[in-house]
Structures are given as structure tokens and as C-alpha cells.
């Protein structure tokens, strides 16, 4: 093993050295959403930081906050045709950067996949995860959630000609889910008879549904409603199943300072009805009037039943 360790070490040293040299060109396509943040982006990579999350002071000192968002979950977090990150989550993330650091460009967006959201927090690769993160008891053991800013239940979308309107219809059939989502947990725990077809990414899941590789697809109802609106021949047969879940920003476990700051921020934003504004800007163009804002938006962290 000695030689292999030696060569691995050598590889590490060389690779790091090389990357330090050529990294500045590359990282701007990788992490930063807006061109103004190119320089600060570099500071954080490979600087030997530990897995302990940064405190509020450290973030302020650095001048850039790292927020994990989806980059392929339209309309919550997606990259528009000009390469700019947009969406409901992103709108809030930019506001956090503005209120914490002074400018909404002081945020480095890290693009995540659903399944690795917890890992990113645990390994301190992001300060906050705001990737449409549904609050669950299991996740609460791993990360600390702030007050919610959105609420959802699960929805099931299926082709109109064989519409699924009741969960029992799914017995023995194939349901498509995305790995690491609440839908995966909910159906595997409560309906073991339903065959689950799992994908890593939303795009793949939708493609599978379009190709007929599954009988229905389930994820948050906001998501399936929006999708069904745009895809003729598909309809949301079950609009709300499972518990009403909330969606919140999350920080690494024990990072109370940052958590408290976010909570205060959410409370103070209630006065200006910030999330209703967010809804108008990002969600309304997609949903139209198929959902009332109050069905989704949570102001001041207070969920009305």
C-alpha cells in the first residue's frame, strides 16, 4: 500500500498545484452565478477550511456567502438562457446576501443535486442550503432548519388517458420518483406495493414519464402542477397526499448564530410581504392562477393550517 499511498499523495500535491494555477479561469463557469463574483469565488476553494461550518462573522469577513440551490428545478432554482441563476429560492437567497453582506451579488451559488444536499452542509461546502429543502424529522437529525418560507404536499401526475386519482390505483404499477426527495420516502414507507422507479435528477424523471417508462410521477405538488400545466396530455390526479410539508433553508447542525440570523430575517421580511413578492416574480409566470399564492407562500415562518 505504501507505493499507492505515495503516488496518491503525489497526485494530490501535483493536482492541487496545477489547479491553483489554472483554477481561476475555470471556476467562474462552475460556481458563480454573476460575473461580478468571480474573484471572491476563488477565495473559498481549496483553502484548507475544515468541515466545521463558517460562523456568521466568518461569512461577513469573507464577504461572500455560499448558498446551495438547484440549477435544474424550474421555477425554484434554474439557470436561464443567459446563464443566470433564477427562481423562487434564488430570489430569497439574493435577498439574504443583500441584507447580510450589502449586495445581492455577494452570494456564491453552489449548484446541488437533490440527493447530496445534506452532504454539502455536513462537509461545510455551503453555508446555507436553499434547494427547495423539505423539512422532515430525519433531516432534522442531520441539519438545522430555519423557519419555513414555503409549504407543499405531494402531488401525483399521470397521463390523462390513464389518470391516477387514487393511491390504490398505483398498486402493482410503476411510480417514478427522484432520489432523496420526500416522495421517495413517503411511498416506500407507506405503500410498499408500489414499484418505484428512481432517478437522480428531475429532468430524467420527467423524460421517463414522457417516454412511458412509468405510470405516474410523484414529487411536491407545486412541481407537478406546474409541469402538468405545460405538458398537454398529463394531469395532476392527486393534488395533495401525505402531510403538508414545509420548505426551509437549512444550515449545518449547531450553526445557531447563522440560523438565528436567518430566522430574524424571515420574521422581519413578513412586514413587506416579501415572499408574496417573490411568488409574483418567479412563480406566477409559471403557475398563472392555477394556485393561489397563499397555498404555497409562508410569511414570517408561520404556517396557517
Amino acid at each position: 500500500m505504501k507505493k499507492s499511498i505515495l503516488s496518491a499523495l503525489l497526485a494530490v500535491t501535483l493536482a492541487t498545484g496545477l489547479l491553483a494555477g489554472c483554477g481561476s479561469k475555470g471556476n467562474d463557469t462552475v460556481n458563480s452565478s454573476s460575473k461580478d463574483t468571480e474573484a471572491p469565488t476563488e477565495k473559498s476553494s481549496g483553502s484548507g477550511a475544515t468541515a466545521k461550518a463558517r460562523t456568521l462573522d466568518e461569512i461577513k469577513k469573507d464577504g461572500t456567502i455560499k448558498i446551495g440551490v438547484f440549477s435544474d428545478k424550474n421555477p425554484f432554482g434554474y439557470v436561464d438562457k443567459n446563464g443566470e441563476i433564477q427562481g423562487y429560492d434564488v430570489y430569497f437567497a439574493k435577498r439574504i446576501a443583500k441584507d447580510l453582506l450589502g449586495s445581492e451579488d455577494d452570494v456564491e451559488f453552489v449548484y446541488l443535486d437533490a440527493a447530496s444536499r445534506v452532504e454539502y452542509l455536513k462537509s461545510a461546502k455551503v453555508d446555507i442550503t436553499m434547494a427547495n429543502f423539505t423539512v422532515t424529522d430525519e433531516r432534522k437529525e442531520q441539519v438545522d432548519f430555519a423557519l419555513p418560507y414555503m409549504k407543499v404536499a405531494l402531488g401525483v401526475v399521470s397521463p390523462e388517458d390513464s389518470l391516477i386519482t387514487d393511491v390504490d390505483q398505483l398498486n402493482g404499477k410503476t411510480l417514478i420518483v427522484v432520489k432523496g426527495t420526500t416522495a421517495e420516502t413517503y411511498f416506500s414507507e407507506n405503500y410498499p406495493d408500489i414499484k418505484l422507479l428512481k432517478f437522480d435528477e428531475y429532468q430524467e424523471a420527467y423524460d421517463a414519464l414522457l417516454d412511458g417508462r412509468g405510470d405516474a410521477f410523484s414529487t411536491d405538488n407545486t412541481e407537478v402542477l406546474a409541469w402538468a400545466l405545460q405538458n398537454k396530455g398529463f394531469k395532476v390526479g392527486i393534488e395533495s397526499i401525505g402531510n403538508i410539508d414545509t420548505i426551509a433553508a437549512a444550515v449545518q447542525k449547531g450553526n445557531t448564530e447563522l440560523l438565528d440570523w436567518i430566522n430574524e430575517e424571515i420574521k422581519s421580511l413578513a412586514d413587506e410581504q416579501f415572499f408574496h413578492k417573490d411568488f409574483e416574480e418567479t412563480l406566477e409566470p409559471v403557475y398563472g392562477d392555477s394556485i393561489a399564492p397563499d397555498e404555497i407562500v409562508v410569511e414570517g415562518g408561520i404556517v396557517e393550517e
Partner: protein
Amino acid sequence: MQDSGILVLFQGTNFLRLWEGLWVSLRIAVISMGLSLVLGILMGMIMTSKNKIVRFLCRVYLEIVRIMPQLVLLFLVYFGAAKHLGINLSGDVAAIIVFTFWGTAEMGDLVRSALISIPTHQYESGYGLGLTKLQVNLYIIIPQTVRRLLPSLINLLTRMIKTTSLVVLIGVIEVVKVGKQIIDASRYTTPGAALWVYGAIFIMYFLICYPFSRISAVLEKKIKD
């Protein structure tokens, strides 16, 4: 519908972003390949060692690399290093480390087989001329092995380019991920974009890998002569 699908490629900076994504893939592959080449030659020489223990350890290393999926290695280096060693690597660095770790083993094995394919009299003639072991390797053996290696080396490089599509799972935005972003951003306006975007990515990979495999074919022919 199909007409608008292809237009998605040319909206805004979409097309440019795809190329940038491809550059990310290519950069990771080429840097890793460069490192693997250097380390692999060393590794190959170590692998031909007469010491049984050294050979066994090399074997273990090679088997570990072959058995472990690259994805597991990527997660280990990217998340594992941050959590357990306190080393916070960027996605690119983690990818290069893993691909180099993999490439060095594969390369080492290729070098090893190339080395043992060199007839013994080549060594012996070298020693007979009074060259040292290092000189024999440097002037006689390595130049010959490199020639024999080139085809399989390029094969490894194209494999590496294609395997870079895994790095998206450690947050590196390479060409396939950019493609997914483009498909997703336009999914409400042009649901048919997927075919065109993936088609474009297919052509891009082809454009990059084909020259390499041509070179490999030409070299193979040349060496036979």
C-alpha cells in the same frame, strides 16, 4: 414543436455555455491524463519490481481502483476529505485527484505490460555498453515503451473524457449538467428541447473524442511499420 427545440440551443448564451461545459470536462480529463502519464510510468516501473511485496502492493492498488466505482471514489474525496480530514477540495480538484488515482493505476498496468514486452537483450545490451540502470531505462527502454503505449494511452484518455460526466454529482458543472440546465430552463416553453440538447452534446463528445481515436489509429499503424 421540433423546430423550436433546436432553437433552444441558440437562445441567449446557451450554446456558448455548452462549450464551456465541454471545456470543463476536457480540462479535467487532460490534466488527469497528464498526471497519470507521468505517475503511471513510475508506477509501471515499480510494478515490474522483483520484490514480491512491492508487486503485491501494486496489485492491491490496481485491484482497488478497478473494483471501486469512480463515483464512490469521487464522493470519498469530495465529501469524505472535507468531513474527516478537514480538507475542503473544490469539485474540480477532487475530480482530478480521483481521475489521476484511477489513471495512474491503469496507466501503470499498461506501462508494466509494455515494459515486459521489451526483450531482455535490450536491457543486456544497454548494460553491456556500460550504462547505468537509470540510463538504460531513460534512453533505451522508455522511448520504446512510449511508442508501444500511445494507442492504449489515447484509448484511456477518451474513456476519461466520457467518464467526466460523473463529476456533476460532486457539483462540477460540466457539459451534461449544462445540457440539463438548458432543458430544464426551457421545459415550460419548449418541452421538446431534450432531444436537441442531448443530440448536440453527443456531437460535441464525438468531435472531441474522434480526433483522439484517429490519432490512435494512425499511431498504431505507424508503429507496426
